[in-house]
């Protein structure tokens, strides 16, 4: 019974998502909202503002520098967590 309920819920959620697909912009169209907000500014001005020819690096390290800082902090935390879980004193 519980299993059937779960399957029914999953199918209902799938139908809702499929219904939502209709409102998404077509694949590969350049004037969709996601491409109009900050992307043109990055494409036009990142070289003049940062001097970095690689746009991805400019966005990663400069415009979204805080994001990358905490990405690095996540890797650091992972290393410390492995150390905490596995490291044991030598007998």
């Amino acid at each position: 019974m519980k299993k059937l309920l779960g399957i029914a819920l999953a199918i209902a959620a799938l139908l809702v998502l499929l219904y939502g697909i209709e409102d998404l912009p077509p694949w590969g169209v350049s004037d969709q909202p996601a491409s109009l907000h900050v992307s043109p500014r990055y494409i036009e001005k990142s070289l003049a503002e940062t001097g970095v020819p690689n746009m991805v690096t400019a966005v990663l390290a400069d415009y979204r520098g805080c994001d990358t800082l905490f990405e690095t902090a996540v890797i650091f935390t992972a290393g410390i967590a492995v150390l905490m879980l596995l490291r044991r004193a030598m007998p």
Partner: protein
Amino acid sequence: MIQHQEDIIIQTVCRILIPFMQVYGLYVLAHGHGSPGGGFQGGCIFAASFILMPIAFDLAAFKKRFAEKRIILLCSLGVFIYAGIGWLCLLLGGNFLDYGELSAILPVDPVMARYYGIAIIETGVQITVMAVMVSIFINLITGGRHKEETQENYD
């Protein structure tokens, strides 16, 4: 668990390969400005060169060159460099991680100061990624004992 085994072919190949891998890791870091690359990728390549060493030779030889204390210190040094640059920009009167302010202490204009600021923080990322990868690897292969397995300390 690893057990030491002499193999002349693997050792010779690693001896030749490791310096090239390290140079390539540094190339990926330095060339992150112009092509795909950067601290995360370069750090992984750099870590792979260090991980080859305990695989080809024994763990004690590796730990003699790269003590555990030093690995953990390097883990935090990278994050420290990154956050330190952020705070330095704050101290020089800009926003957090606003590398343009670094032109006050670097002999370049603000645009190139951003260029070099990115280079410095990518170096920090590379150091952290490299040290964390090596640390996780050493901890996993030895089960946290940092010692090669023999039959008596296996239980």
